């Protein structure tokens, strides 16, 4: 039985157990139908031209992981941004871990999807927002069908959330292969501001595949900063689908730090449904050793006077593969759009591959759209300058690469988070220097 059949048949069991009201029930049933029809994406599809799921789909994933493993905070502390006070929503093998988490209902909701889906007081929000941004593609649909657990964050009007929120998915993997499908819903109402950090971490050598969907709604003048840390081990794969709907004058930014994992696919979609919206998409990718990272972004400019900024940097070592597919659509009505996209790559090894496709589809005439894409090497003059001043080759290289990715880091607003990323980069580049300190 292949994975698709297995999933479709386990849906019946799943749906029996799930205690939900009829709205979500219908959404799930529609979603499984879409998945059944479309199946897993293949390389024949344009959006999956450079990324094949075949290998990772071969594993015999267990769809419903068994009882949760207890973890002690001190064992997993290093995966948290622990030096500042934060709200935490922690999942172990897809199950909520109350003793590692710190949630709140004080003036806002930072809690669980399972609660939101089942309790009547969330009903209105769920009906207004749940599955309203996610596309009807096969993988998001699969997630919708099995949507049960994840983070639910609702920030009401005029609220500045002082502490960042961390969403952490840990997998301990008792089974030989685990499939996780977390589902997050984040609604930020008028004039509110929130910072969220998301991380997926596998603690086992067993295969883990995460097919995650996050829906973010930034209402009028809301500010959302979202950070994704993807620094997983070599047997963990992640398909991350993030959909962001923005209303007028809102600002949403997503920083993606892809440092590891067997295969990472980021589908990041922005829909601008109002005027004077700003969308920011930034990413740093540093990978090696057979790893594969695919950034697939979409910015859909629907209304006039909006902006979008994309900046993705990639450093590819050994036999790694990088893909960047950035799409900007500017609708006819979206006059005075200012869309900027840049993708810069460094291939460190001869075995590394980069495929990039910055794509523009423009239907409005009064717009400023530009995209740039480069593939190149480190500047030899700069290397020489540093070498001649006594900086060893490895450190000199690392300094240049850090400088290369600094554009993206400089817009990270949480200081501790920036330090953490800097450390991970130093680690990745194999040097022991505190950059920017």
């Amino acid at each position, binding site marked *: 039985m292949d994975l698709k059949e297995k999933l479709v048949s386990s849906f019946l069991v799943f749906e029996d157990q799930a205690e939900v009201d009829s709205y979500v029930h219908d959404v799930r049933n529609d979603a499984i139908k879409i998945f059944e029809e479309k199946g897993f994406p293949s390389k024949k599809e344009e959006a999956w031209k450079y990324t094949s799921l075949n290998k990772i789909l071969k594993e015999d994933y267990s769809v419903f992981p068994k009882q949760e493993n207890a973890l002690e905070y001190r064992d997993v502390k290093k995966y948290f941004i622990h030096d500042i006070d934060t709200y935490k929503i922690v999942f172990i093998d897809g199950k909520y871990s109350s003793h590692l988490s710190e949630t709140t209902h004080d003036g806002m909701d930072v809690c669980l999807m399972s609660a939101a889906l089942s309790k009547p007081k969330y009903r209105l929000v769920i009906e207004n927002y749940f599955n309203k941004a996610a596309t009807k593609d096969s993988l998001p649909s699969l997630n919708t069908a099995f949507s049960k657990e994840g983070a639910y964050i609702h920030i009401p009007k005029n609220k500045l959330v002082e502490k960042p929120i961390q969403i952490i998915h840990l997998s301990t993997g008792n089974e030989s292969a685990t499939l996780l499908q977390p589902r997050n819903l984040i609604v930020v109402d008028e004039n509110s501001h929130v910072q969220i950090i998301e991380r997926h971490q596998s603690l086992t050598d067993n295969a883990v595949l995460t097919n995650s969907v996050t829906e973010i709604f930034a209402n009028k003048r809301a500010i959302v900063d979202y950070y994704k840390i993807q620094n997983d081990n070599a047997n963990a794969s992640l398909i991350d689908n993030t959909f962001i709907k923005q209303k007028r004058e809102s600002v949403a930014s997503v920083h993606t730090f892809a440092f590891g994992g067997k295969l990472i696919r980021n589908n990041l979609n922005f829909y601008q449904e109002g005027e004077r919206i700003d969308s920011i998409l930034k990413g740093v990718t540093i990978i090696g050793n057979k790893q594969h990272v695919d950034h697939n972004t979409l910015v859909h400019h629907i209304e006039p006077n909006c902006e979008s900024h994309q900046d993705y940097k990639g450093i590819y070592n050994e036999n790694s593969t990088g893909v960047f597919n950035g799409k900007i659509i500017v609708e006819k009505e979206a006059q005075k759009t200012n869309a900027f996209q840049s993708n810069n790559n460094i291939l460190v090894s*001869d075995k590394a591959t980069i495929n990039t496709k910055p*794509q523009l589809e423009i239907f409005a*005439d009064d*717009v400023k759209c530009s995209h740039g894409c480069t593939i190149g090497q480190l500047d030899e003059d700069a290397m020489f300058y540093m070498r001649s001043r006594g900086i060893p080759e490895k450190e000199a290289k690392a300094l240049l690469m850090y400088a290369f990715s600094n554009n993206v880091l400089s817009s990270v607003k949480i200081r501790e988070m920036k330090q953490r990323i800097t450390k991970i980069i130093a680690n990745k580049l194999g040097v022991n220097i505190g950059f920017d300190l």
Partner: protein
Amino acid sequence: MSKYTEDDLREELKTKEYEYGFYTDIESETFPNGINEDIVRAISKKKEEPQWMTDWRLEAFKVWKDMTEPDWANVNYKKPDFQGISYYSAPNSKPKYDSIDEVDPELLATFEKLGISLDEQKKLAGVAMDVVIDSVSVATTFKKTLGEKGIIFMSISEAIREHPELVKKHLGTVVPQKDNFYAALNSAVFSDGSFCYIPKGVRCPMELSTYFRINQAGTGQFERTLVIADEGSYVSYLEGCTAPSRDENQLHAAVVELIALDDAEIKYSTVQNWYPGNAEGKGGVYNFVTKRGLCEKNAKISWTQIETGSAVTWKYPSCILKGDNSVGEFYSIAVTNNYQQADTGTKMIHLGKNTKSTIISKGISAGKSQNSYRGLVQINSRAENARNFSQCDSLLMGNECGAHTFPYIEAKNKSAKIEHEATTSKIGEDQIFYCNQRGIDTEKAIALIVNGFSKEVLNKLPMEFAVEAQKLLEISLEGSVG
């Protein structure tokens, strides 16, 4: 450029007429609609081709039968009915009109603007010629000059008969029969085309052109061109015509193969101005072309194209940079107006070391048209120090048109240096204001700005083409100012 005026051009066109003329036997005969093995055989027989050629065509036909029409391009059109087309229609020698007064005045006005001589106008519009121009002598001198240098320039059917060894060796090596749907179809049924061979170390003294060929009007839907530049040679080849061609053939599927051997250089310029359909988007030609060049060591291939015509264009002139130090270039202007759709671009495949490629693409869309750039830059793992620079600029006029860019970049070598940049903009109101202020009316101002926008590409065209192309741009965009 300033010394060369429109009058000079007109003068030159008059005197140059039929300079490059050659003539193929014209028989008024049309095959029944549809395609099958017998039709392919019959075409081959009609052309008095040797057995190997017939087999080659049949092989292509076999592959084609199992292929499906590609639909990945960013264009929408009604798929042609391949069994509803006649695959061999000998150019019709009968004049369509008896006198120039019967010709569509709109067409004549366009000729006038392009500065095309009266005789040329008649020929292009299909009017019976009352003045017979003695082209034979001109053609003979021309052929003699080429002959002295050992250059072979003839129609491909002639070449199949007279130089089978050359054709057999090279035909289909760059664009194989099974390359794609349209290339396979073309391989099976191509009616005619040009063949050109430049021997070792020869620099072709003149621009080779199909422009003034007498039977231009009926060149056929399935043209096949093969240009071979032997070691160290150079040739510049012009294709197409700035004058609008009113062609009844709806589907055009041409194949062009260029082979540049060691140290050779080929410059291939195209001006395409097939009938784009009327302002409501009815009619018009589908132009599905496969063009590809192969560069051996130190060779260079340069494509320059001005695309203004056709209802649907689907065209990607490509370079395979196989030899070390080879160079590929692509310069393009694609203009779409009304309901035209263009999906055009290039492929640069870097296989050899130190290979370089440059892509400059300028898209101008007006009216309700859709203009796409689709390009691939591929750096193979053994292509050390490959270098690519791409620039795609789009200019939008009005808010009902679209401009799209689909650049694919695939690098497998760490020493590759690739740059890609694209911009989209409209003509600035301040630019127009600046011109208006200085007494230049808006239409002229736009022409001026468009010219400036496309200058980089226009400069790459051979002189006599450049002037006409400039005019063509103006005409194509006429009336698009809102």
